């Protein structure tokens, strides 16, 4: 199977539009983006996919050894972009996928024209002189919470989006791809996410980027967003009026406006 088939790729928008790839974060899948897809797709070729083990990705994509670190996910995205052969894309990464997007750009700058990092955090654990927001004990507690909850993303989202009367064709497709999120996969992804330290990788990135920070975010606090901006050459920073970690759901208009505004301007700050 090709990477695009393995990762349940969907593309919308004009074929000759600037390619814009949306990478979802921990615990969810590409449906996370459904409130912003249409706005981006007006004049971009929008590509959506599911990470290994998430949503409609083929079950064989997830390898507990390979995906024990973010490098495994990075390999996947590089392979996917190579397969799509769209030329340099705008790569939008949310949450942990912002880190994955950074790793992709560091390794293969030819694949990425610009980066959009939504709620990025290069390290969640506190360290000497660095505040990531979480202590080691708190990470253990999070993993325990994931143990006791089966609230899979797809379980909640698929029926809702499937019921969207504006997009009946989407509904059928999503119902078909409906799959229970494997708690083991979620846990492995959480482990790879919350134990990673990618601060040093920021200096390796030469790609122009936009850091999108929510006004109040318990997972990626404002100071972490600023840290990313300050350590990332050629980055711009925008604070949007949104609370929580998922502005593409809670404040889709603000997110779309910030991203389109950035893409309309020159890449450098």
């Amino acid at each position, binding site marked *: 199977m090709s990477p695009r088939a393995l990762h349940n790729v969907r593309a919308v928008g004009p074929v000759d539009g600037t390619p814009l790839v949306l990478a979802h974060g921990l615990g969810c899948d590409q449906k996370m983006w459904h409130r912003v897809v249409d706005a981006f797709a007006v004049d971009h070729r929008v590509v959506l996919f599911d990470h290994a083990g998430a949503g409609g990705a083929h079950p064989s994509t997830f390898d507990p050894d390979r995906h024990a670190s973010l490098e495994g996910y990075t390999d996947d995205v590089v392979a996917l972009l190579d397969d799509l052969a769209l030329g340099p894309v705008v790569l939008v990464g949310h949450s942990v996928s912002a880190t994955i997007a950074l790793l992709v750009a560091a390794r293969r700058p030819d694949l990425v024209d610009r980066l959009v990092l939504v709620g990025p955090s290069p390290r969640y654990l506190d360290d000497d002189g660095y505040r990531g927001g979480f202590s080691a004990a708190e990470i253990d507690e*999070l993993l325990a*919470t994931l*143990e006791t909850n089966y609230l899979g*993303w797809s379980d909640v989202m698929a029926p809702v989006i499937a019921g969207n009367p504006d997009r009946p064709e989407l509904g059928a497709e999503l119902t078909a791809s409906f799959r229970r999120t494997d708690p083991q996969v979620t846990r492995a992804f959480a482990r790879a996410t919350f134990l990673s330290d990618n601060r040093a990788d920021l200096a390796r990135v030469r790609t122009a980027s936009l850091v999108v920070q929510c006004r109040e975010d*318990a997972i990626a606090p404002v100071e972490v967003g600023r840290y990313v901006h300050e350590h990332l050459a050629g980055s711009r920073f925008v604070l949007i009026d949104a609370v929580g970690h998922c502005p593409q759901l809670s404040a889709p208009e603000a997110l779309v406006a910030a991203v389109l505004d950035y893409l309309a301007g020159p890449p450098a700050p």
Partner: protein
Amino acid sequence: MTGPASNESRAWSTAPLGLLHLDADGYVLRANDTFVGWVAGQDAGTGVAGRRIGDLLTVGGRIYWDTHVAPALTLAGQVEAVRVEVRTAAGPLPALLTARTRPRDGAIDVALLAVRRRAEFEQELVRARSAAERSTERLRWVQHATAALSHAAGPEQVRAALLAAVAAHPGVAAVRLQTAGGLQAGDPTGGRHPGPDGRLSVPVAGAAGTHGDLVVQVRGRPAEATVDVDALATIAQQGGVALDRALLHERSMSVAHELQHAMLTIDLPHREDVTVSAGYRPADSGMEVGGDWYDAFWVAPAVLALVVGDVVGHGLLAATAMGQLRTATRALAGPGLGPGRVLDRVDGFVVDRETGFGSTLVYAELDTGSGVLAYACAGHLPPLHVTDAGAEFLWEGRSTPLGVHHRRVGPPRRQGRVRLAAGDTVLLYTDGVVERRDVPLTDGLAGLARTAGRPAAGAALTTQVLDAGPNRRDDACVLAVTWSGTAGT
């Protein structure tokens, strides 16, 4: 205070549920008495209103709220029975959270049901599942190590494979093999449980002694990536067995090489009227000892015996068989017997001792007075007679390989005769000189005849023949005798 409104209000406040009313961003607008009581305990002054719900939950719930619950509320308008823990004065309180969004303004109603006892039951289930998953992971780890060890060849590779397999565990920060001279197994900081410095130590035991200790530095976090000590011990034990095997193999190879070396560096007979030279070329792989050997000795004062053999197999067994056949041939040859009878005797030795079965051998005797060469080939390639006029193979005296067709009585094995002219040379050799997979044997023999026909003698000739040999995958040896024709002593 009477009336439905106040009754409802009282019911809301004292319901056996923690009830919250949040704005669309998750900030508490109102909390009922039950919830305030949980959070504040005796300290009624602790405020709840104005705080974000995430801050009222333990960190797991806080992240879960932002990654799962809030998106679900935005999209689906409700969530049911999410397991969270409320931060209370008395410690974390397990609760089930159900919430619904009001379509009008996005405000959120939250109900929290305390589930202390049920939580214990759930934890049992989670523990049981974790144990099952851990045992699967443990099995995978051990299997991975077993596969890696089975592919490793020498002791160095085995050690590297062992370390790499252990390091593949996500809970392992570092690993090294500590051998004698450093930390020993009894070191108080190592052991079955990680010490305060997070170090584990297990022995890599061999059958005859220890190969050292695997000292593993474990990561502190997360708790579920715990390194299983039993699995680690199993891997270490397998590493010990693999190291035993690799060292034994290495030793047996080196013994085999020594044996072969001893057999191939004999003093060749030397006299005015005969020049004997020999050459041996090991196979390119060089690791395993092949079974080619040669010998030359005086059977009678004027009779020189020349032998080339090829033992089936490789390694120490082949080297041992070579030694036995060589000694037996020397001991069983004698004046007046002739090559056919000598081979019969060697054949009997092979059958009686059950060693060297299927080996091939060419045995020749040169009468240095007359120049007559008698020879017999037990399944072996024919000797090559090189004269001034050219080279010719000696195709007489052929019989089966040793041990294949032994008869105690009856006519002796066939032998051939040829009279050498002064200056003639006879070459005995093994198949490595002429055989190659992609070339017919006849072409290989023709090539040898051409090479040997070029003017050269003694060591130069054997070197020339070996260098021209096309096959580098097999070992090869050649023995050359040149008769000068002048009478000896």
